[in-house]
């Protein structure tokens, strides 16, 4: 799209001209209100209300719009005006669509056998809005639904027609950097030469991880290090699904690994499917390079 403001204004004026025009004229529901569609809906929603079964069943009121949906077929009721408006938006790059608002009023219950008809009007077209998904325009339609010719409900629906902000075209995100400070610098120096170092108190010999300035057992500030053998097992784990963070591809397993030396470390469990990770699973340390400056210790799962 051209970014000149006056071009936006001219385009917005063209869109605004569709306000008040019909979007769907004398649409006819593809099927009358019927028990199988009600049952599929209730199964999907987990809705076990007895109001929707039996001889006096009504349809769930929130199905109002479902009776007007075209499914995979074409929409003969859609007007040329609405097609033109959507084409204008498509051709200007706003080809993606997402529903944002729905407002339904129910005037009478719908029952199996009711024949559905409907009309729809374009209530409003917004100015250009920046959204997380991309810039676009909100289009609001109002639909009047009738059952056997009687008013049964109204339904206001707002969609966003937008130009997707392509995430894939951005440079690959890098993993977050570790915070390296005076207290843990020795650990990261070890990682850089592929050694996982555990602190050891030189006063009471207690091992400690993660790295800290003093011993949690005797309080001594004196320490040296031992290098982990690399053997360990999954003490506990979680599988990350959502939210996805940059540079991470969920789902993946994050383990609390108990090293053979007895201390525990949090890291990724790799090399086995995320859903095959189990408590007690043996793991072996390896070092993986994630980019030109980041090497991390991770744990290869050993499946039986």
């Amino acid at each position, binding site marked *: 799209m051209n970014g000149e403001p006056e071009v936006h204004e001219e385009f917005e004026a063209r869109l605004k001209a569709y306000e008040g025009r019909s979007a769907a004229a004398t649409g006819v529901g593809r099927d009358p209100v019927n028990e199988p569609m009600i049952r599929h809906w209730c199964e*999907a929603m987990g809705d076990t209300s007895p109001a929707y079964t039996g001889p006096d069943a009504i349809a769930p009121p929130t199905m109002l719009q479902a009776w007007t949906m*075209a499914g995979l077929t074409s929409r003969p009721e859609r007007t040329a005006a609405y097609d033109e408006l959507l084409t204008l938006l498509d051709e200007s790059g706003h080809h993606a669509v997402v529903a944002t*608002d729905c407002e*339904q009023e129910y005037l009478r*219950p719908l029952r199996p056998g009711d024949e559905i008809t409907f009309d729809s009007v374009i209530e409003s077209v917004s100015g250009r809005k920046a959204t997380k998904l991309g810039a676009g325009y909100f289009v609001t339609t109002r639909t009047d639904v009738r059952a056997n010719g009687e008013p049964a409900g109204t339904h206001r629906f707002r969609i966003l027609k937008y130009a997707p902000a392509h995430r894939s075209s951005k440079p690959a995100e890098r993993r977050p950097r570790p915070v390296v400070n005076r207290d843990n610098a020795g650990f990261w120096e070890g990682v850089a030469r592929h050694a996982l170092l555990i602190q050891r108190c030189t006063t009471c010999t207690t091992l400690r991880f993660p790295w800290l300035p003093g011993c949690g057992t005797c309080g001594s500030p004196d320490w040296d290090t031992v290098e982990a053998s690399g053997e360990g097992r999954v003490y506990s784990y979680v599988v990350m699904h*959502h939210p996805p963070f940059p540079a991470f591809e969920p*789902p993946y397993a994050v383990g609390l690994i108990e090293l053979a030396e007895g201390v525990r470390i949090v890291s990724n469990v790799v090399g086995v499917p995320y859903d095959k990770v189990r408590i007690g699973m043996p793991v072996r340390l390896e070092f993986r390079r994630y980019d030109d400056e980041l090497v991390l210790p991770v744990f290869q799962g050993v499946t039986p």
Partner: protein
Amino acid sequence: MRAGDRLPPLEIPVTRTLIVAGAIASRDYQDVHHDPDLARQKGSPDIFMNILTTNGLVGRYITDHFGPRAQLRRVAIRLGAPNHPGDTMVLTGTVEEVDGDTATVRVVGANGLGEHVTGTVTVRVPA
């Protein structure tokens, strides 16, 4: 039924099956509700729940609480953070106003990303 009453929360695991079953039950074949590749091409990390399913779940939340005699009068919702597979949506509700046998309930459905849905439901509960 009094203003200020809180409805017990309802947890909805957002599975791929729920998203697809809800889309089909509402005759909504938009690709972003069943095809992960096409959803990604449109800037979404995965498929996401369609608004008709959210609307149906909000309606169910209210009638589950007020019982089968409750009559929905109006459901008005606005979507925010999408419902992706693997997430959990927790619906909560507060009675905002009571007029005779009719209540207005404010509903919020929160997931791991934030507020998926906010809205109000008007429901008549005959004595």
